[in-house]
């Protein structure tokens, strides 16, 4: 655990802790909704990777933008979204962030700068780079973070936009969540050479960080965001992390591609919430009881939001033809 700035900002630390707990709690509920057949379709759990989303998003302002992925609930919560509208969206309800039209894989929260999850692997890399170009051109000092997985580094689009981001010095941070797998395949089998070297070859400064250590992630991001705001971007960060669940909620029997021992080891020894909790207690920032209270509170919030969403109404079928085109003028 990175101890820089320990105790200097208890409030920030506790908010990070709470945000990580909120993500875990959201995912536990989403998984239950799937298992109890109350959720339409499939969804991809972020559990285990909380320190990545929270460490990064806590370094951002509301007006900073992010683009997210198919595994997007964590980014959405971390960038400031509310449980109710999120669960409503996952259940296809009218009060969802996207009025039920997007669902888990397209959840967006434009008011908080989340330009949306994306069901095309790598599909948001251009969008993030474009948001950065937009900010720069319009004279705003907003930064954009592009989240994507190790698997997405195989998509050519990434190299096209990194080239332009580097040529034009855009305020964008490419955040590669390397959770060691893309679907059912190990990253070694799909990524030749070095991921960070690929960014460096375009003249982009690249970093590798322990994605289970929220403070390490946050420290690095704060520095890079500050530099990007000053026009020193783009940057590339590879965050080493792990997803606890299967590729999606339906991916139950997965021993053919990864062992139970490996999973158990990450959960037991590298859990971002447990470890950060221990550190907060050791540093005297919060007692175990205080942390337990946060967890209980979040749990109750989540349960209430789930109940709300389950009872909420579906959009009227007349909405099906709405929002194909934006109104003009």
């Amino acid at each position: 655990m990175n101890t820089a700035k320990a105790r200097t900002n208890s409030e920030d630390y506790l908010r990070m802790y709470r945000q990580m707990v909120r993500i875990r709690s959201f995912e536990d509920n989403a998984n239950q909704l799937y298992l109890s057949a109350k959720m339409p379709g499939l969804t991809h759990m972020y559990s285990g990777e909380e320190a990545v989303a929270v460490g990064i998003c806590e370094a951002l302002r509301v007006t900073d933008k992010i683009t997210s992925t198919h595994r997007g609930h964590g980014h959405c919560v971390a960038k400031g979204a509310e449980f109710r509208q999120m669960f409503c969206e996952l259940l296809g309800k009218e009060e969802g962030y996207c009025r039920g039209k997007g669902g888990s894989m397209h959840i967006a929260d434009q008011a908080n700068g989340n330009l949306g999850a994306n069901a095309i692997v790598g599909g948001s890399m251009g969008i993030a780079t474009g948001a950065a170009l937009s900010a720069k051109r319009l004279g705003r000092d907003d930064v954009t973070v592009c989240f994507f997985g190790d698997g997405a580094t195989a998509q050519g689009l990434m190299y096209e936009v990194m080239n332009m981001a580097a040529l034009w010095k855009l305020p964008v941070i490419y955040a590669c969540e390397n959770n060691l797998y893309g679907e059912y395949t190990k990253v070694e089998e799909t990524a030749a050479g070095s991921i960070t070297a690929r960014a460096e070859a375009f003249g982009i400064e690249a970093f590798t960080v322990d994605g289970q250590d929220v403070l390490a992630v946050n420290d690095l991001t704060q520095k890079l965001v500050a530099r990007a705001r000053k026009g020193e971007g783009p940057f590339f960060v590879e965050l080493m992390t792990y997803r606890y669940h299967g590729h999606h909620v339906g991916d139950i029997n997965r021993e053919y591609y990864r062992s139970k021992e490996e999973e158990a080891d990450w959960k037991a020894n590298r859990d971002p919430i447990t470890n950060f909790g221990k550190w907060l207690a050791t540093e005297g920032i919060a007692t175990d009881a205080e942390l337990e209270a946060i967890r209980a509170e979040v749990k109750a919030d989540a349960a209430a939001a789930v109940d709300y969403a389950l009872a909420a109404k579906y959009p009227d079928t007349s909405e099906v033809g709405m929002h194909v085109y934006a109104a003009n003028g």
Partner: protein
Amino acid sequence: MRDITLSKAVNEAIAEEMRRDPTIFLIGEDVAEAGTPFKVLSGLVEEFGPERIIDTPIAEPGFMGIAVGAAMTGSRPIVDLMFGDFLFLVMDQLCNQAAKTHYMSGGKLNVPLVLRTNLGATRRSAAQHSQSLHALVAHIPGLKVAMPSSAYEAKGLMKTAIRDNNPVVIFEDKLMYNDKSPVPEGEYLIPFGQANIKREGTDITLIGTSSMVQVAERAAELLAAEGISAEVIDPRTIVPLDEETILRSVRKTSRAIVIDEGHQSYGITGEIASRIMEKAFYHLDGPVIRMGAMDVPVPFSPALEDVTVPTPEGVAENARRLMRGEMFHAA
């Protein structure tokens, strides 16, 4: 005959052809151990090994291009594209390269490849995992396009596709993978460009593609109960299209409805309806009715998604109107 799933039928077709011809290989994401997310290819890597069942990185344009080059040089690749929606990523390699190479080379280079992918909404997969994009490839000369409507067609068309010397795109309905239907034990192939008359009838012709054949069949049952005799036709391949079988039917029934799960506007229903109207105009008692999917991105919410695709009830209702001579659109 035994009943097998569409998924198994595809698997058998590929396995049989791969046993026959060592130049065939299969390439795509999570096709080997995982056997694809839909488990359609399970077991193939065990039989043919990772040299012939090739797992790729998540790089659709890349492996599509690789398949084109392999096809030009003596291999017969089968490309597995996990979702039909990813066609947008491979369009350049498919349409600018694969489709045109034979022509541009004056017939000297061939591109014998199969692109197998899927279509179909109502799986709650939202706008980027639910599209039925066959119209896009059907528009490009040089490509052939097959749309199996059951396990039987899935097997027979896949085998024909693999033996074809041209790029063939084959769309499976991802909601039908577990549907069982009778499939012969012995080898058979279904030639391209031969429509199948699924059900004979005299009053109206229902032309459906892929899972819409089932929708048409169910509509035909509803109509039969009311004394209306519907003929159901499955074109099986939309390129080449068996115009003759369709026209013969319409000349008999004088009425037709075309049902398809692609977006209606600028989709395939317009082509089929136009050809009927062009070539059987004087036999028609009313306009050919088109029923495609709604012209909206596929919404996630079940409450919305279900209304975007044609239903048996909707087809039956349009058939009744045609029978009643109600020219609802004509002004």
